[in-house]
């Protein structure tokens, strides 16, 4: 059986040829789009975001229509010469009639376009309009689009309709654009959490998502793609209960793998010769099938038991690894706490909250009864705690000599939790009181780290560092920096964002070698040098949590949540990850928190469900001749239960010859995921401005390339055109340029905030990243006052949330507004949700009763809202409000969204909390969304 027919048998045939023939049957100029037969080969839904809500999305805003109504045809756009060549490059995957066109002012005489709502619905007038009947959903995603009636001459430019969106923008500099701001593309609500359905037997895109689902066949083609060719990998992403990754145990016989490239058995391996051999998908080598794994094939060449074996039918599996995958017995989960007890930590209440939280989590730590635990506290001295199970009270040993730390007692510093449970509890109870009167301001973090690594050197594990001041004693002491504005814009600027002392890099390397994963919790209001501290997390697969100006009453809840999540989430220990790609494709760069142990092996001492990575691919010189490219991500880890496992995600992607297909298949979430990591990494060794420019240039090049494909042929001068799949790219790049790690210069963010946000961005999964870049803005007062009894609401809401699992989106999602200060009505209350916190903005002339109902009567007239805790009041309004917050929180569980209150006109805070989120407004040296589009348009038009 030939290879190609083999491919056809197991996966939908590749669409190129059928479609091309199809295309030729129609006259090139006016193929009635509605008559296009739906592509038979289409195994997955159309590639645009599938509608999430049961209701079709609101009709596009004014002037946003794809095919103009037939009556508009009397004023056609500039004609194309009738000899216009037929489409040379039909998009194989095109779902016909999915396009969005946006023209200049509509002609005066045609009937008005269907009622449409600018924004996503919002202020009352718009909502009213929205209640008008929506067009039937069968007309494609962009509703309100009627295909031209048969017989009516299609407008010129019609045949390109399938290809792209266009936006007509006046190209003359300085003139106002004739496109309404409302018409600019914005992410639909809940789009961040939505993934496309996996194609064929691929793993779910939540685990592995390519920037484009079409791999270019040649080097030259890849060079014209301009955006990164890569993927976002989230190996342990949380899945809803019905989609858990199946566990496969091959027993003692060992896991079936390719002899040469060591690829794990997967659905794309082809069995031949009655099932005796299989051909590896990645390297194409013919392998023997182990005797006890042989199974007969059916007439299509598939194994008869394929459906019963998850590894042959599903893209994601967990293999149980036998002995040969271990260099030592699987390690138990180890948690070690390194706590700063200097005066800042005690006064702000960090010590109390940390101790309480750890104590409450003792029962939920994974891996009972093997879990081990240990503590070390430090100020100018180091305090060791012996937690021997025979003791009733922990024994504390103080080591004052920090220059050359040694362990005062070799054992019992790290103990089995179930055996020493009582001693551990006694320690956690007494910790806050021991140091309650501590006046020590020094912090000997470096020596404490050295002592800790020697305690943990036997096993490894997870190290949680709580740091409240700048390390000031012993090795690894840091100095104040980043206070001078003049450093910015010079070559010394990027040094602010990397570790100052090489001690931290060496310590990180040592931790990685000893299988220690470090999580850093930093608290200080003053400079703590998060850039240096975060280095420890960066190379050990950890995370950085930063709570500037921690205040127990306000931030306590967030710390409690984040810490308990850190301690109780499923963690993979002593892990390594490797990516294997099909012939002709090679990984080139990895981004994220890990350390490379060999050129393609990522060492991850502790990795969990909240860590994502990205990788870029490069093509080798040869032309890719096969039809599919394969990728396999394998994560070898020890589960908390002490089992060695391998999580394998496999994906197959078509290889294409057409650039247009690459653009059509582009995946905005993954593109943004890789781009933002690239930009953050760039900011570590270059100026911020250059990092922003770097992303900007990539985007402009991509759009220009796309324009050159079509615009000349179809005389679309004066319009900016972009593929449907990338319509949000300009918006996200704008948001990225205004995001905390990359924003502005000296004045716009402190170095610590920048570094912490940068570290966070490197590990973020796609949904949380998109949410952070383009937060949701909700008008709260209108939403809450909707007529609906509270009890009903909550009851209904709960069932919805329950039914929809983690996605939580839903029927009752409040309408989202565009992120511009113009919508902030002084009479209203608004909430922004960026996945990290809620900001509740209260208008100046908002009714005090409303404020009193939500925040409590004493807050209504107080001017300082800085330390107002948002707690549920005893009234319906407040209950509804908190139900809404709870629902939004459920959508992203990786971090606790704290609610912060700000009143209109509070100068500094309003700017920092609200206006920095308004990505569509001018700010941080970047233009508003509209101006941005004009600017990009101008740059795209420029000839290089």
């Amino acid at each position: 059986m030939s290879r190609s027919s083999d491919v056809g048998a197991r996966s939908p045939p590749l669409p190129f040829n059928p479609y091309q023939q199809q295309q030729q049957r129609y006259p090139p100029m006016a193929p009635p789009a509605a008559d296009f037969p739906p592509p038979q080969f289409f195994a997955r839904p159309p590639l645009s975001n599938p509608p999430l809500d049961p209701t079709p999305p609101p009709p596009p805003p004014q002037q946003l229509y794809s095919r103009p109504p037939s009556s508009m045809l009397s004023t056609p756009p500039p004609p194309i010469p009738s000899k216009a060549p037929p489409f040379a490059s039909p998009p194989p995957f095109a779902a016909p009639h999915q396009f969005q066109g946006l023209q200049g002012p509509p002609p005066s005489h045609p009937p008005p376009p269907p009622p449409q709502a600018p924004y996503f619905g919002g202020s009352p007038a718009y909502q009213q309009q929205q209640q008008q009947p929506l067009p039937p959903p069968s007309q494609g995603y962009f509703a309100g689009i009627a295909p031209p009636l048969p017989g009516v001459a299609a407008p010129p430019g019609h045949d390109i309709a399938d290809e792209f969106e266009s936006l007509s923008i006046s190209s003359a500099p300085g003139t106002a654009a004739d496109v309404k701001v409302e018409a600019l593309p914005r992410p639909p609500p809940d789009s961040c959490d939505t993934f496309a359905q996996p194609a064929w037997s691929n793993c779910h895109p939540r685990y592995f998502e390519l920037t484009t689902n079409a791999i270019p066949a040649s080097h030259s083609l890849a060079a014209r793609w301009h955006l990164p060719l890569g993927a976002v990998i989230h190996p342990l992403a949380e899945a809803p209960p019905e989609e858990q990754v199946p566990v496969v145990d091959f027993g003692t016989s060992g896991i079936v793998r390719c002899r040469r490239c060591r690829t794990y058995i997967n659905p794309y391996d082809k069995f031949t010769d009655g099932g005796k051999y299989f051909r590896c998908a990645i390297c194409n080598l013919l392998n023997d099938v182990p005797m006890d794994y042989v199974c007969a094939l059916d007439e299509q060449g598939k194994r008869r038991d394929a459906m019963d074996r998850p590894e042959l039918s599903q893209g994601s599996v967990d293999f149980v690894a036998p002995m040969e995958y271990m260099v030592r017995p699987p390690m138990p989960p180890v948690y070690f706490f390194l706590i700063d007890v200097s005066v800042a930590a005690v006064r702000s209440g960090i010590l109390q909250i940390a101790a309480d939280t750890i104590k409450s989590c003792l029962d939920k730590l994974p891996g009972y009864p093997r879990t081990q635990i240990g503590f070390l506290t430090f100020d100018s001295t180091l305090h060791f705690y012996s937690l021997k199970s025979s003791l009733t009270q922990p024994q504390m040993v103080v080591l004052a000599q920090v220059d050359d730390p040694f362990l005062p007692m070799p054992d019992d510093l790290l103990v089995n939790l179930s055996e020493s449970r009582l001693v551990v509890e006694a320690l956690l109870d007494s910790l806050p009181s021991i140091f309650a009167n501590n006046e020590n301001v020094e912090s000997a973090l470096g020596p404490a780290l050295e002592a800790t690594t020697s305690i943990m050197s036997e096993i490894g594990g997870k190290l949680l560092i709580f740091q409240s001041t700048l390390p000031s004693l012993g090795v690894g002491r840091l100095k104040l920096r980043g206070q001078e504005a003049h450093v910015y814009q010079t070559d010394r600027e990027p040094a602010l964002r990397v570790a100052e002392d090489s001690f931290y890099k060496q310590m990180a390397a040592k931790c990685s070698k000893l299988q220690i994963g470090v999580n850093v919790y930093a608290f200080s209001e003053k400079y703590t040098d998060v850039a240096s501290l975060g280095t420890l997390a960066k190379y050990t697969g950890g995370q950085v949590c930063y709570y500037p100006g921690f205040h127990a009453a306000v931030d306590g809840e967030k710390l409690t949540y984040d810490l308990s999540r850190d301690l109780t989430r499923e963690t993979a220990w002593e892990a390594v990850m490797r990516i294997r790609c099909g012939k002709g494709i090679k990984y080139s760069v990895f981004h994220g928190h890990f350390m490379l142990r060999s050129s393609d092996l990522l060492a991850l001492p502790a990795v969990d469900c909240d860590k994502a990575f990205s990788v870029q691919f490069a093509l080798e010189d040869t032309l890719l001749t096969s039809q599919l490219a394969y990728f396999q991500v394998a994560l070898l880890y020890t589960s908390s239960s002490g089992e060695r496992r391998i999580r394998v995600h496999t994906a197959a992607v078509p290889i294409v010859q057409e650039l247009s297909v690459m653009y059509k298949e582009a995946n905005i979430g993954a593109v943004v995921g890789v781009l933002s990591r690239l930009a953050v990494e760039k900011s570590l060794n270059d100026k911020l401005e250059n990092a922003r420019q770097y992303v900007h240039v990539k985007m402009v090049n991509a759009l220009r390339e796309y324009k050159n494909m079509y615009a000349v042929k179809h005389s679309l001068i004066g319009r900016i055109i972009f593929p449907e799949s990338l319509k949000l790219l300009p918006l996200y790049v704008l948001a990225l340029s205004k995001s905390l790690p990359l924003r502005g210069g000296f004045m716009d963010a402190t170095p610590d905030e920048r570094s912490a946000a940068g570290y966070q961005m490197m590990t973020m999964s796609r949904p949380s990243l998109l949410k952070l870049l383009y937060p949701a803005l909700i008008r709260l007062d209108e939403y809450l006052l909707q007529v609906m009894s509270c009890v009903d609401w909550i009851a209904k809401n709960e069932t919805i949330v329950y039914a929809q699992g983690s996605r939580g989106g839903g029927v009752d999602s409040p309408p989202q507004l565009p992120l511009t200060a113009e919508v902030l009505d002084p009479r209203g209350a608004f909430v922004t949700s960026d996945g990290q916190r809620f900001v509740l903005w209260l208008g100046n002339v908002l009714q005090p009763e409303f404020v009193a109902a939500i925040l409590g009567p004493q807050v209504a007239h107080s001017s300082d809202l800085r330390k107002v805790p948002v707690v549920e009041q005893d009234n319906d309004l407040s209950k509804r409000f908190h139900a809404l917050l709870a629902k939004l929180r459920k959508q992203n569980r990786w971090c606790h969204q704290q609610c912060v209150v700000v009143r209109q006109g509070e100068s500094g805070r309003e700017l920092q909390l609200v206006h920095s989120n308004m990505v569509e407004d001018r700010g941080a040296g970047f233009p508003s969304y509209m101006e941005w589009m004009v600017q990009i348009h101008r740059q795209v038009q420029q000839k290089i």
Partner: protein
Amino acid sequence: MAWDLALWILSFLAVAAALGIIVYQLLCLSDLEFDFINPFDSSSRINRFVLPEFAIQGVLSAIYLIFGYWLMFLLNAPLLYYNIRLYMSKRHLVDVTEIFNQLEPEKKIRFYKLGFYLSLLCIVIYR
């Protein structure tokens, strides 16, 4: 004349030693590339010999300067300047955490150094 001879023998030995160091470091880097050793060992082996190499080169240049071999000193001056700059900005050691990203540039620098010491060796021998 005896001074002269001793000096040339000394500089021959020094250049040969520097050459040996560079070749050893290159071997470590390529071993790392082909996954024969891990980054920790590789970088510690390389870093062990970074300062000796700098010292040899510095002493050699100083000797040339003191004994008035201006041409030889001028030949050595650019590398000396480069080494001192690296040392002053504390970038002379290989960074174990980023070694894979630095692999290519580090190899390139060492190939240039290799070429430099080889030509120096030729000059010393045929002098």
